[in-house]
């Protein structure tokens, strides 16, 4: 029977490549995860922010609310102000409209006399529910999720 002998030189050569390959992947894979890991992570979870008693919201008129939220920017935490309009017709069903015009991002303003939201930049007009009335905006105002718990109004936007 022929013995398949592995020469010392050949063995060391193979061992060097195998160990080198192991070290290479052992360092390579964590490096790759380190570089791309956080880039592919989902956006930060939004939190429910308390706005106050639901019964205090004015009936039939969009009311401007402002909240401060903390936003993570890498290792920096910024405090940002988010504003939006809350509207309720009956004190039970609420909607929250973003005050950012869907055209180019200017802030819209509720004008009570005319019963519409106006955007000062390009004359975009939205109705009470946020639907486009006239002007360049391509879609209605964005909405935030709201909930009422124990008579307190919460918005999902933190």
């Amino acid at each position: 029977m022929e013995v398949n002998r592995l020469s010392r030189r050949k063995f060391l050569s193979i061992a060097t490549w195998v160990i080198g390959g192991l070290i290479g992947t052992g360092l390579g894979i964590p490096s790759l995860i380190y570089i791309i890991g956080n880039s592919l992570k989902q956006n930060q979870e939004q939190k429910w922010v308390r706005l106050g008693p639901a019964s205090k919201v004015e009936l039939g008129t969009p009311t401007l609310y402002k909240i401060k939220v903390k936003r993570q920017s890498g290792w920096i935490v910024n405090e940002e102000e988010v504003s939006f309009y809350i509207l309720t017709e009956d004190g039970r069903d609420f909607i929250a409209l973003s005050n950012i015009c869907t055209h180019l991002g200017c802030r819209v303003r509720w004008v009570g006399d005319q019963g519409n939201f106006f955007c000062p930049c390009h004359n975009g007009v939205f109705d009470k529910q946020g639907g486009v009335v006239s002007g360049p905006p391509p879609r209605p105002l964005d909405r935030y999720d709201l909930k009422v718990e124990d008579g307190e109004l919460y918005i999902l936007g933190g």
Partner: protein
Amino acid sequence: MESRFTNWLDERFGWRQVWSAIFLRKIPKVNWLFTLGSATLFVAINQIVTGILLTIYYVPTPDHAYDSVQYITTQLPAGWFIRGLHHWGASAMVILVVLHMLRVILYGAYKFPREVTWFTGVILLIIVIAFGFTGYLLPWDQRAYWATTVGTRIAGTPPLIGDWILKIIRGGEELTAVTLARFFGVHVWVLPATLLLLVGVHLYLVIRLGISAVPTREE
């Protein structure tokens, strides 16, 4: 390795000759202490790779340095691993370089014709220490700050020129944002460039002159 393509490449590059000059050269019968140089080279490569990875996230300014290091260590996946390799690799580097030097001294390997290899090695030792000194400040925590305060003060002890040296190292009277920025610049640009150049010369000489054998009683 004997495919037509590799032969084609070798005709143009001559890489087989380079390969055999580096890896298949004849060496005397030696012991494990002769691997200390290669071990140093290995850790140096580790430091270069992990160091480059750290600069992807690290920011060398007083308001961001500490936080970005914390971000790397606690928020990034495998960040603790990359930073850990660089941190412990730094200590390993100093230890290995010193052991390597001791072996060369004790075996008399610095003698003719290897004096220039020794000279470059001495400068490389100083560069490694400079790497350690500048890198120590970069996390910008209490230990880094005060260690560098003390370290630069020591550099300022020589008479006449001491004060001048201290100010140049710190980039001013005090340890400030300027100090951090210049330590970073030296750590990632000046020292690596010098290190690579000298390692190139060092290795060229090791290969050209061959390594010395373990000295025997008869010599």
